[in-house]
C-alpha cells in the first residue's frame, strides 16, 4: 500500500530525497564532523528551521486544506516545548544538586535533593515548592507523552466547543488568537508553575550527556529532519484519497459536505487535534535547540507569522508550507540577527532589524493579492514549461 501511495504522489518522494540530501550535506559539513564549514550555532538554526517547517505543515493541513484559519497553533508548539523543557530542566538540576550535596559530610536524604531542585528551579519566582503540574517531570517517558497529550487535549476541548457551536471564518480565527493570548498571559504569571516570564532555560544541555554541543546539535538536527519527514509522510497520506477530498470539500463548501452525510464537525475536530499534536512535536524538538522557552514565544504574533509563512510558501500544498517556513524564517534570522549591513542613506540609516518587518508585511500583502499560490506556485510554472 505504501508503495502505491508513494507512486501516486511523486512529489512526496522528491521531497523526502531533497530532505535526505540536505540533512546529509549539512551533517558532513558541520563542526560536529570535523569539516567545520557549518558552525554549531548554524546547525542549530537549521535544525530549528526544520521544526518550523513541520509546524508549517500542520498549519497548511488545517488552513490550506481544511480552510480553518487557526491563529493559535503556536500555542500548541510552545506547549510541546514546555513539556519537554520540564524534564530537561528537572533532570539537569537534579544532577547539579546531587553533585553539590554529595560534597557534604552526611549523604543527603531524597527530600533534601527534591527541596534543593525545587529552590534551584523556582528560586527566580520566589518559591521552592514543586507545583502539581511538575509531578511527572522526573520521568522522560511521561513528559514525552504529555508533549502529545496536553496540546492534544487543549485542542480537543477548544475545538469541540468552537466547532460544535459552528464558529467559522474570521470569528474562529479571533477565538484562536484569544486562546493563545490567554495561555501566554497565564504563563507570564509567576505562580503559573512554569517560572513566569523567565520561562525554562538551559534546555540545550542534555542531562547526563557529556558530548559537546557540536555533537548534540547534530543529533537534534537529525531528529528534526526525521520528524519533518515523518510528518510530511503522515500529512501527505491524510490528504490523499477520500479524507483529503472531504476536508477540501469542507474548505470550499461546508454545508454541501454536511448534506452528503459527513459529520463535518468531527472531521474538523480530528484534524484540529492532529495538527495541534504535530505542532507540539515540532515545538518539543525546537526548544532544546533554542535553549530557552518563555511565554513570549506563544504570543499571538507568533501564530500570525506562521500563517504568513504558509501564505508566502503557498497554501494547499505541503512543500509550499515547508518552503515558505524555511525561506521566510531563514531570511528573517539573517535580517534580524545583525548580519545584514545597515544602509546609510545620508539623511537616514536603514536598519534591517526594523525594516525587515515592513518588507515581510508588504510581501504578505503582495503575495495575497497577486500570487495567491505563493512560492509553491512557481513549480506550476515549471511544470507548464515542461509540457510546452
Amino acid at each position, binding site marked *: 500500500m505504501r508503495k502505491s501511495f508513494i507512486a501516486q504522489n511523486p512529489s512526496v518522494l522528491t521531497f523526502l530525497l531533497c530532505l535526505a540530501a540536505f540533512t546529509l550535506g549539512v551533517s558532513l559539513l558541520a563542526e560536529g564532523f570535523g569539516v567545520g564549514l557549518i558552525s554549531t550555532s548554524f546547525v542549530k538554526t537549521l535544525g530549528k528551521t526544520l521544526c518550523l517547517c513541520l509546524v508549517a505543515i500542520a498549519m497548511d493541513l488545517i488552513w490550506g486544506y481544511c480552510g480553518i484559519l487557526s491563529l493559535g497553533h503556536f500555542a500548541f508548539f510552545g506547549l510541546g516545548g514546555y513539556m519537554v523543557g520540564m524534564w530537561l530542566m528537572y533532570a539537569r538540576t537534579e544532577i547539579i544538586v546531587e553533585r553539590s550535596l554529595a560534597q557534604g559530610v552526611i549523604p543527603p536524604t531524597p527530600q533534601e535533593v527534591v527541596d534543593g531542585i525545587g529552590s534551584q528551579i523556582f528560586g527566580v519566582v520566589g518559591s521552592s515548592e514543586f507545583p502539581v503540574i511538575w509531578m511527572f517531570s522526573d520521568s522522560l517517558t511521561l513528559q514525552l507523552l504529555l508533549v502529545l497529550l496536553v496540546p492534544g487535549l487543549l485542542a480537543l476541548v477548544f475545538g469541540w466547543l468552537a466547532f460544535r457551536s459552528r464558529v467559522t471564518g474570521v470569528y474562529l480565527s479571533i477565538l484562536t488568537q484569544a486562546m493563545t493570548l490567554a495561555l501566554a498571559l497565564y504563563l507570564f504569571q509567576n505562580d503559573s508553575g512554569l517560572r513566569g516570564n523567565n520561562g525554562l532555560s538551559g534546555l540545550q544541555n542534555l542531562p547526563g550527556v557529556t558530548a559537546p554541543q557540536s555533537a548534540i546539535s547534530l543529533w537534534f538536527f537529525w531528529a528534526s529532519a526525521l520528524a519533518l519527514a515523518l510528518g510530511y509522510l503522515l500529512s501527505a497520506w491524510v490528504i490523499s484519497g477520500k479524507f483529503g477530498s472531504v476536508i477540501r470539500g469542507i474548505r470550499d463548501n461546508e454545508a454541501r459536505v454536511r448534506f*452528503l452525510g459527513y459529520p463535518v464537525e468531527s472531521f474538523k475536530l480530528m484534524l484540529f487535534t492532529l495538527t495541534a499534536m504535530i505542532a507540539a512535536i515540532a515545538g518539543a524538538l525546537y526548544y532544546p535547540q533554542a535553549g530557552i522557552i518563555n511565554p513570549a514565544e506563544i504570543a499571538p504574533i507568533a501564530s500570525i507569522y506562521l500563517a504568513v509563512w504558509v501564505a508566502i510558501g503557498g497554501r494547499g500544498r505541503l512543500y509550499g508550507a515547508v518552503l515558505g517556513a524555511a525561506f521566510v524564517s531563514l531570511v528573517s534570522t539573517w535580517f534580524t540577527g545583525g548580519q545584514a549591513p545597515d544602509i546609510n542613506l545620508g539623511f537616514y540609516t536603514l536598519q534591517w532589524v526594523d525594516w525587515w518587518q515592513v518588507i515581510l508585511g508588504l510581501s504578505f500583502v503582495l503575495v495575497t493579492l497577486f500570487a495567491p499560490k505563493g512560492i509553491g506556485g512557481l513549480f506550476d510554472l515549471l511544470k507548464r514549461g515542461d509540457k510546452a
Partner: protein
Amino acid sequence: MSQMNTLLEVSGVSVSFDGFKAINNLSFQIGPAELRAVIGPNGAGKTTFMDIVTGKTRPDEGRVLFGEKSISLLSMSEAQIAQAGVGRKFQKPTVFEDQSVRENLMMALKAPRSWWSVLTFRTEKTHVARVSELAEEVGLLDQRDRIAGELSHGQKQWLEIGMLLAQEPRLLLVDEPAAGMTPEEREHTTDLLVEAAKTRAVVVVEHDMEFVRRLNCKVTVLHEGSVLAEGGLDHVTADPQVIDVYLGR
C-alpha cells in the same frame, strides 16, 4: 417493493422567521417510488420546506416522519438525515469545483461517513466501476478526470444529480434542476429524474411549467406556506384559486 405507501410524512408543520410565517400548517406526503413536482410563487415556502426536511431549519411545530419505522427527522442533524437517505440538490449547482468529477462522485458514493472510516477508506474496483456507471448515467463518462470547475453549467447540474444518485438516497429533493439549461439539457435532466423516481421518491421544486409538464407527475402547489392544491397538472392549473395566486399573473 415494500408494503409501505408513505416514505415521507410531513404534518402540521409551521415555522416563522421574525414573525413572518414561512411555513403555515403544511402537510405533505410522498410514496417510496414517486415523482412529485412542487410549484408555487416566490416566497411560497418551497425552499424552507426543503430546509425543514433536510434538517437545516427546525420547525416551531409539526411532525416530519421518514421511512418504514417512521423515524422523526426533527431530532437529527443534517449529516444524520443525509445518512438516513435524504439527498438534496441545491438551486445553484454546488459541486466541489476544485476537484475532479471522479473525486466528486467518489465523495458522494454511499459508504460509512465517520472520519475514521473515511481516513481508512480504500478504493476498491467496485467503487471505481460504480463511479464510472454513475458518470455514464449523467453523461459525464469522458469528463471523469476533468476538474468540476471547468464543466459547463448544465454539466455541473448533472454532476450534482450524479452525486445525489451516488448517495443512493430514498428521497431526493431537487431544487430547480432545469434553471439555466438548454432545451436538450432539459430533456436529459427530465429523463434522469423520471428514471430515478422508479426506485425512489423524488421531489422537484420548479418554476418552469413546461418542465413540470414534461415530468408528467402529481403536482403540489404551495402558497403562503401551505398546500393550495394537489393533483395532476391539468387539474391544478384549472383550479381557480391556483390561477388567482400563481398562474393568472
